């Protein structure tokens, strides 16, 4: 029995799971602490300066209502107990449970992230291949410059400018309409998604392109490529079967990281384009000082990030069977 446990503890999957749980606990403690360190609470956030008109007993009632009268460790454990029993908390501003809010917001962010990463891959991988096809040539210079420009332009700038130009010049601004979920109005939904996905996709296409270019150049210098070429493998097949396939590991790593970033970091795009996603949920929760909304949503994002990393690991193994043996 003891040896089985030791064996399990040493198993990569068990170890990864243990690390993931520790990460999630750390994120939860950090979020909880940071929120409490910030000045203000839900009462001052809701009432603003009119909180000064509340009597002491009214304030005490409100503190009790929001659970702010309990000691901090008790607040944390109470929230954690709720999480384990499926209760992520309640948002009095939205009039909904955080679980329901997240169930509504998560598909929006997932859809945006998937569209953005697909666009990023469609732009980034061919871009990297084109740049790597003639290092130092004009096409490489153009690709590198474009990549640098995109990296230097923040999403809030490109998003705002793009939305303004389309609204002012063509009167086209689907994001000014109430958000249409994919299942209810797919045509309007894709219109509302296209600009944020484009802005985010282009912004993360840049690192993917750079990674692709570097990886391809590295692989192209390997002995086995020279051997394959000497053996008469056609250039097209050489690029797809040998160069690109072997360059995929860093590309998958970068794409996984970027996808994870999109799940929690699409907040700016969601804000600019009024998409009711999970990033905006955190932002609004912060503004309204709704502790349970922020803590639970950040936890959901952290879980997603951990899952994406696990999936990325699995994809490594599909791309390169040698990883299994490491």
């Amino acid at each position, binding site marked *: 029995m003891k040896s089985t446990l030791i064996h399990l503890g040493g198993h990569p999957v068990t170890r990864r799971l243990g690390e993931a749980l520790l990460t999630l606990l750390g994120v939860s403690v950090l979020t909880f602490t940071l929120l409490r360190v*910030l*000045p*203000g609470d839900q009462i*001052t956030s*809701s*009432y*603003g*300066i*009119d*909180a*000064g*008109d*509340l*009597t002491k*007993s*009214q304030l005490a*009632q409100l503190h009790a209502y929001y659970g702010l009268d309990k000691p901090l460790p008790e607040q944390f454990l109470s929230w954690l107990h709720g999480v384990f029993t499926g209760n992520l908390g309640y*948002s*009095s*501003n*939205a*009039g*909904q449970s955080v679980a329901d809010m997240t169930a509504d917001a998560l598909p929006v962010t997932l859809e945006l992230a998937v569209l953005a990463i697909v*666009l990023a891959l*469609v*732009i980034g991988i*061919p871009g990297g*291949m*084109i740049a790597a*096809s003639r290092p130092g040539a004009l096409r490489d210079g153009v690709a590198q410059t474009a990549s640098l420009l995109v990296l230097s332009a923040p999403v809030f700038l490109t998003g*705002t400018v793009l939305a*303004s130009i389309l*609204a*002012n010049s063509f*009167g*086209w*601004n*689907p*994001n*000014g*309409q*109430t*958000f249409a979920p994919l299942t209810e109005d797919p*045509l*309007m939904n*894709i*219109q509302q998604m296209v600009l944020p996905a484009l802005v985010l996709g282009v912004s993360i296409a840049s690192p993917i392109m750079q990674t692709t270019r570097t990886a391809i150049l590295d692989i192209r210098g390997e002995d086995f490529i020279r051997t394959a070429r000497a053996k008469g493998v*056609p250039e*097209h097949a050489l*690029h*797809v079967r040998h160069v690109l396939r072997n360059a995929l590991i860093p590309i998958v790593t970068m794409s996984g990281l970027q996808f994870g970033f999109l799940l929690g970091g699409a907040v700016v795009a969601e*804000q*600019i*384009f*009024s998409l009711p996603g999970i990033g*905006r*949920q955190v932002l*609004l929760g912060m503004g*309204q*000082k709704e502790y349970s909304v922020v803590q639970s949503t950040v936890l959901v994002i952290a879980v997603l990030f951990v899952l994406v990393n696990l999936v990325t690991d699995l994809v490594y193994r599909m791309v390169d069977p040698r990883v299994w043996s490491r």
Partner: protein
Amino acid sequence: MPTRHRRTTRHLIAAGTVVTTVVTATACSGTSGSSKGADGPLVFGISADASQLLPWTATAIQSQQVLGQVYSSLLEQDNHLLPGAGLADMPDVSKDGKTYTFTLRSGLTFTDGSTLDSSDVKYSIDKVLDPATKAVARTSLSAVKSVSAPDAHRIVIKLKKPDASLLAALSSVNTAILPSNKPLASLKKKPLGSGPYAYKSRKPNQSISLVRNPHFYRSRPGLSALEFRVIEDQNSMVSALRSGAVDMAIFDDYVTTKTAKSDNVTIQTVDQLNYHALQMRPDSSTFQNTDVRLAIQCAIDRKQVVKTAALGQGDVVGPITSPGYASDPDARPCPSRDLKAAKKHLAAAGKSDGFTFTAIVPQGLYSSASDEAQNIQSQLASAGITMKIETLDSSAYVDRWLAGKFDAAIALNGAGADPATTYTRYFTSSGNFNKVAGYHSENLDKLFADGIATTDISERREVYQKISRELEDKAAWVWLYSGRQYIATNTRVHGFQPVTDGSLQSLWETTLA
């Protein structure tokens, strides 16, 4: 380059182009503008969700704007912020000014068709007075002794002492009339009032939809439907206006507003009652000495603050901005900047070499705060006074401000139609915000009591001029200016009359062409 490799590259470029084109074409294939008829819906853009759905506790302007369409009050403010007939006619007031008798209009109903009578009015005022409700208007009704409903149409309000601000308080959305037979818990989720529009649905942080109330007591509202759409980002709001996705929105920022103006968007400018001030706390050790405060008053050119921080979009004001009671902005020891006088006051305070203080400045509450702080900092430096700026995020600022934990603060404070409701809480010894204001006197306590008890308008005006004069002579704070609001409307929108307090009284009459 080998031919096959070149072909691969071309294929990749072609594939990328095709995918991008297909996605864009699919996206652009639908209609983007709103397909609205003349009957509506009219889309009103708001910068934050209207999450407070109980009018008695609604403090956010967005909630008040939405609830103002759903609920009615006993009286209603007109476009000049004066109380007029609402659900009831103007009251009969007893000679001693302590008994108000209101008569309700006949045939009043809530939007669900149920009857609205005096029992609902009594219930509502009693609930506002109940501390457990945590109603924000409770202090405004503190003079109320009892409320009775002798019959279905009459309400009698008895006061402990005469209160000239009672009618203004009863015309606020914070004293709206709610149905007595519905639990508050349900009304917090699904409002039910007697206003021009009935609550239909809410998507949290996205939109609130209202539909025409066919039972509205005034007449038929102008639109079949009204939607308040949440767009937090101001630039996105401008894009939504210009594309026609949003029909109306209110901006505070002049620069943003300018970008909204186009062939199909017009801008109306409205003066605000809210005032910008440099709050000093005279009960702090830094500002105890009146000469120190007067030195600051004399060292600041208020017009320069308006020019730099508000880009000239505002007017210099004194303490009181309420219509009919407004202070003369020049009735103060230093009507304009006077550095010699500032130096004299500094010398009288024993601070000829100047002194240093810290002002808290909000970030995120309103756009001009930092610019005001920097301009004042630079002006005071010329008089040898060093103002350190401590920038705080909105929550931190409100926390410190409420606790009175500051020497000075750059502030934008709300003001109402009645000067009593605006200032009693700040400058009377028992005022809830006296800790924030840091100044009171026996004279002011007496004057504020007189102001509330005096019903004659011209006598009241005199009382408030005296209050204003003391606040300026003692330089309790430095009142700077009142800014402007900008109402951006699509040219299809007709009949909207803006009001200085940001409320939307005339929205119910508004129509779409």
